[in-house]
């Protein structure tokens, strides 16, 4: 057993058993893979971490879930006009754009994190939880804005693939020896080579670093297991470092559901590994091209605005 396989096995043993006990037998592709193909969405309003007022409560009752949904949808409503001029301005990006969803996950969990059981990321005490330095000040250059606003990487692509505030859409296409995930935001294609019993493809060299890492997949029964390493030092998922090891598990548990689980390991940022779970539900296609950089007029506007403010402040 190689080091990579050993680490993988350790994470898998620690993972959730829910997906592994699924009774559903998915159809197969012609080359014998469980068939995950189709268009899927991970849209949900369930937060990654458990809200403070739900501490100790792992699951909603059905009635509590409906109330939480009602409250959240009302709070997220960007079409409201009850907050004065400044609030109106910040809601100019209104619900014509947003598509955050209106429902919690069907498991009725109160957080996407299922391990640790408290629903919180086990951050090391010496790691700050806030945004990276530079973010928040008037931007001196594009580097002072988030990766999303720079059209470099969205949480929807990750990996791990997290729901965001719109276009949470994916299409899975399986060819012989590959599973590929087309991610609508922002036109990313995750090409995952599959290891066979006698055909294990090592990761690319540690000197090659990628925003989305370097994935390798294999099947364990009906579960696709994808292990990703080789992240660069700028992806920083939840402040993880470039040595983050990610293991994702995709299990089709029903015709219209893929249970997606991910386990993050990085001793430089977390005291232990942690796991999230998001059901992906079948939805309608097609996936539409999201040309982010090609239409990023906002970046020009934000930078030009910051320069205009400086000029004004200098009294020129």
């Amino acid at each position, binding site marked *: 057993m190689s080091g990579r396989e050993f680490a993988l096995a350790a994470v898998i043993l620690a993972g959730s058993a829910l997906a592994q006990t699924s009774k559903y037998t998915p159809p197969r*592709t*012609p*080359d014998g893979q469980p068939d995950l*193909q189709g268009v899927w969405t991970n849209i949900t309003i369930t937060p990654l971490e458990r809200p403070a007022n739900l501490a100790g409560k792992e699951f909603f009752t059905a009635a509590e879930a409906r109330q939480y949904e009602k409250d959240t949808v009302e709070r997220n409503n960007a079409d409201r006009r009850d907050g004065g001029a400044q609030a109106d301005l910040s809601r100019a990006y209104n619900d014509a754009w947003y598509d955050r969803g209106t429902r919690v996950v069907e498991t009725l969990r109160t957080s996407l994190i299922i391990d640790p059981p408290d629903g919180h990321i086990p951050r090391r005490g010496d790691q700050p939880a806030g945004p990276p330095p530079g973010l928040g000040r008037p931007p*001196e*250059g*594009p*580097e002072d804005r988030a990766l999303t606003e*720079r*059209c*470099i*990487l969205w949480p929807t692509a990750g990996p791990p693939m997290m729901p965001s505030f719109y276009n949470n859409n994916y*299409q899975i*296409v*399986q*060819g*012989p*020896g*590959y599973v*590929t995930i*087309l991610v609508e935001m922002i*036109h*990313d*294609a995750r*090409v995952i*080579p599959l290891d066979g019993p006698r055909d294990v*493809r*090592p990761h*690319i060299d540690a000197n*090659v670093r*990628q*925003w*989305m890492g370097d994935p390798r997949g294999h099947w364990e029964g009906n579960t696709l297991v994808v292990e990703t390493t080789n992240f660069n030092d700028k992806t920083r998922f939840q402040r993880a470092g470039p040595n983050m090891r990610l293991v994702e598990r995709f299990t089709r548990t029903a015709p219209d559901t893929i249970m997606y689980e991910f386990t993050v390991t990085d001793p430089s940022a977390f005291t232990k590994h942690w796991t999230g779970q998001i059901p992906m539900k079948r939805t309608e296609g*097609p*996936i*539409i*091209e999201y*040309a982010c*950089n*090609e239409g*990023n007029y906002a*970046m*020009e506007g934000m*930078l*030009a605005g*910051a*320069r205009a403010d*400086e000029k004004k402040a200098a009294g020129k």
Partner: protein
Amino acid sequence: MRKSLTLFSTAAAAVVCISLTLTPGKAQAPAAPAKAVAKAVAKGPRMPDGRPNLNGVWEYIGTANWDIQDHSPAPGPMWQLGAIGAIPAGQGVVEGNEIPYKPAALEKKKQNKASAPAEDPEAKCYMPGIPRATYMPFPFQIIQSNKDILMAYEYASANRLINMGKPIEAGSDTWMGTSNGHWEGDTLVVDVTGLNGLAWFDRAGNWASDKVHVVERYKRRSNDVMDYEATIDDPSVFTRPWKISLPLYKRAEKNAQILEFKCVEFAEELLYGKYKKQPTK
């Protein structure tokens, strides 16, 4: 009109394009071999359903991304790069070497070229469009399923899904267009509409408008080589349809894979440099 093409009219248009391209003068010679090629059985691996298996990492070798037409070597746009940035000579990939521009369209091509490289969408890390994505100096991977086909290009993380089911209409214009594919014998034929006309064909500023209709043909010649053709029809820019043809080579490294080239980072100075805070003098 362009967006409401049915499969029938699309296929008919493709046939018309090809016959138009092959009929006049110089282009007449390939007509007979082309017919023979259409009948020939493709070499290389097969899918479980018997279709040619196009899976793999592919790349064009040549200088078409500099200029799809025949061209001599020339100094590059950045003298600071010396010979590194110079333009290599190239034998074009346009059949007959002539792009039949209407006069005003040729003027725009010249303007494009004069504005390069700053205004070349490639420099801005914009998606390359079709057919340029195919002959960029980057590999791309074909993932062929029993249903649809995904083409994932290394450059700019561009990609496109080729719908192999019931043809869909282009919902709105996009950089990579809307692709409907079908098989004609052993040839994968992809009908591309809904292109936004903002991508260029090369660094020399060759272009088409948002009225362009591209029909591509992929046919595996052997284990290692695939023939690629693209017929380009845009009556608002060209006097007749014209055709690109080139070979794609299979990347034969055991560990061949497309890597990341998320180039936005590398284009930010070009795109936004003038809006950045300047150091105090």
